[in-house]
């Protein structure tokens, strides 16, 4: 393998890391506040779909990305309302969101574009890329890095972050000191899902330039694995996310080479996720009230 190939894989992995990092960072923030969601897979898929519609309608990829964020916000509000205000189970709404995405996206592709399962975006709806001889890079790679760093800084250095972490560790203590537990939890959930929404829209209007009914490909769950692997730390998520992006890129790079059957290459990211998670969990310590509804006496 020559240097060119290495740089090429590096570029691919940076592109592949974006949705995973954004979702991991969002999920880490949300879980630091004590709200678990497994619905990010559905958020990615739905915001990829709606983001593409927004981009096509306006002819601006940026609007598409904002549309993805909007989808994330709405789904986050739904999840937050059920878990935070109605004190519901944290896992089941996510199952519902994922199932909903499995319906909405294929239905929508067919109903909106009239094609089955896949739609290619016109060029004017796609994000511009920096082209080099080794491949392309999206400005979203930079945005993602900035978001991860800023989120980390706010979470660990500011009063806002301190309060978010306190409602996820010991909401009773926070409540007694006048911190509105429900408000912090709700908006943390919204933020988490909004970042996933951005990641989803990135996949369609930026990275791949197409919408496909299974395009999220388990990334919502890989991102959760990465969040755990990163110890609920946005900054570490960035590195972890790049690692997962690397396996993704490696699979795409290997696929056309026909060294082994394509199916085995496609398995690679999932197998690596499983191995990494199996090796790391046990040491990782989630926030103490993660996933538990808080109800005042």
């Amino acid at each position, binding site marked *: 393998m020559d240097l060119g190939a290495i740089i090429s894989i590096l570029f691919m992995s940076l592109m592949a890391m974006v949705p995973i990092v954004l979702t991991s960072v969002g999920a880490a923030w949300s879980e630091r506040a004590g709200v678990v969601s497994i619905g990010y897979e559905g958020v990615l898929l739905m915001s990829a779909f709606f983001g593409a519609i927004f981009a096509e309608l306006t002819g601006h990829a940026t609007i598409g990305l904002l549309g993805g964020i909007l989808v994330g916000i709405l789904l986050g509000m739904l999840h937050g309302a059920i878990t935070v205000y109605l004190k519901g189970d944290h896992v089941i709404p996510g199952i519902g969101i994922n199932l909903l995405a499995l319906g909405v996206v294929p239905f929508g592709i067919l109903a909106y574009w009239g094609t089955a399962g896949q739609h290619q975006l016109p060029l004017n709806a796609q994000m511009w890329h920096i082209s080099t001889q080794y491949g392309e890079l999206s400005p979203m790679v930079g945005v993602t890095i900035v978001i991860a760093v800023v989120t980390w800084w706010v979470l660990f250095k500011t*009063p806002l972050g301190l309060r978010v972490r306190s409602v996820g560790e010991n909401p009773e203590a926070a409540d007694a000191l006048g*911190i509105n537990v429900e408000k912090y939890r709700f908006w943390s959930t919204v933020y988490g899902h909004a970042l996933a929404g951005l990641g989803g829209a990135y996949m369609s209007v930026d990275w791949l330039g197409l919408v496909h009914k299974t395009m999220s490909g388990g990334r919502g769950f890989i991102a959760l694995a990465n969040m755990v692997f990163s110890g609920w730390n946005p900054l570490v998520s960035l590195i972890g996310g790049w690692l997962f992006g690397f396996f993704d890129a490696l699979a795409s790079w290997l696929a056309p080479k026909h060294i082994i059957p394509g199916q085995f290459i496609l398995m690679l990211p999932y197998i690596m996720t499983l191995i990494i998670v199996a090796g790391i969990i046990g040491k990782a310590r989630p926030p103490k009230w993660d996933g538990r509804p808080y109800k005042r006496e």
Partner: protein
Amino acid sequence: MEKQPIIEMKGIVKVYPDGTKALKGVDLTVYQGEILGLLGENGAGKTTLMKILFGMLHPTSGRILIRGKEVQFRSPSDAITHGIGMVHQHFTLVEVFDALHNIILGMEGHGLFSRIDVKKAREKLQKLMNDLNFQVPLDVPVEDLPVGVQQRIEILKMLFRDIDVLILDEPTAVLTPIEVEELFRVLRHLKEEGKTIIFISHKLNEVIELTDRVTVIRKGEVIGTVETKTATPQLLARMMVGRDVVLRIEKPPKEAGEPILKVENLSVKGDRGEKAVKSLSFEVRAGEIFGIAGVEGNGQTELIEAITGLRKPENGRVYLNNVDITGKGPRELYGLGMAHIPEDRTHMGLILEMTVTENALLGLQWKRDFQRWSGVINWRRARGHAKSLIEEFDISAPGTEAPVKSLSGGNQQKLIVAREVSKAPVLIVAAQPTRGVDVASTEYIRNYLVKLRNEGKAVLLVSADLDEVVQLSDRMGIIYEGEFMGVVKPEEVSTEEIGMMMGGIRYEEIRK
């Protein structure tokens, strides 16, 4: 100087959604600058009353006046704004934060998105600690600090918010006598600074030592308020219990028989890998109650779990009837004649969502009596079993198929005792058997333990309630940091001596 009431609570009634009347029209007046003792038994309503004052609970009816002005608190932060702070029995600290961040939480200063000025906060806290003449480490995660220090952080957290009235709910329950002295020194200092303190307790001596006045609460009503200098322990006890004598247990002398439980050099690790029990040895004989006294968190939980098969010991051996049971699981131990009344009733002893029948079967499900054929449960028999437990132990329950969470705490505990006794054990391990249980059930359970002892069973009693251990035990070991400071007969030592042992001084050194 005329005494000014700082807090007046008038006609406070609290009815819980399930219909329990916790407070039946309570009046309470607290004067500026005093230490008021709030005395009462478990479940008398002291904590409920103070949670209302602190805004955690809302009264069903009644009024609260602060400095003569009526207030309505929607949350604890409302109370804090009005200068009222509370330190709970179970601390509300964020365990992974250090003391500094725990204290400044919610009062970080500046905007939400600006950087927290840790240096400034530290200076401010250091000054506060110097004024109060006590210190806590500010940079260590609070989970790594001893409970006495955590309590001081809680107090600091309140004082940092400039409160005038400090409520402390049973603050000495988790402290050693030395730590209690230190706490009292701090509280007296605060009083000199002009703060008002409400001290909730059920311990007569502490109330007499510390307070200026005492208000006694019994079954949700105020029985009376007395000046502490005119009060005697006898008077307060009578007011608190409503009878002349505190619980008296009839316990005929009995010669202990063969050793049933033998513990040899047992070492057990705690959840965080610390040495919780250090090479402990003792035995419990037939027809004997062996008590273990000590401040909570000195290895009692780990010791019991190791004996009852819930935790693997690191070293040492345990024998039941001369059978080596070290490392055996609960299922085997129940078969060998062990019964276990666990300390955590709602999280371990019962499954609250399950029915009375299912809970009555917990731990007995493999018994042939309850199997239709191998592996299939005979629910008809199980229901009959539950019914007989209810009758025999006079448990008030809506029925055998009602969820066990619909029972009161006392009845839940009686169900556990009934079930464990129905295992026909030779050894009963009873941990905190009467914690949070009403007086009638407490008396019943204590008498039952004595009855079991009279029948020749071995009883291992672990309790944080010193009176309970002293009254019930034939012999007792006082545990401190996983070791016995002494193994004595209760009638042969004074309360002071027990207190010193609980604080880590060995019996031999005391008697020297």
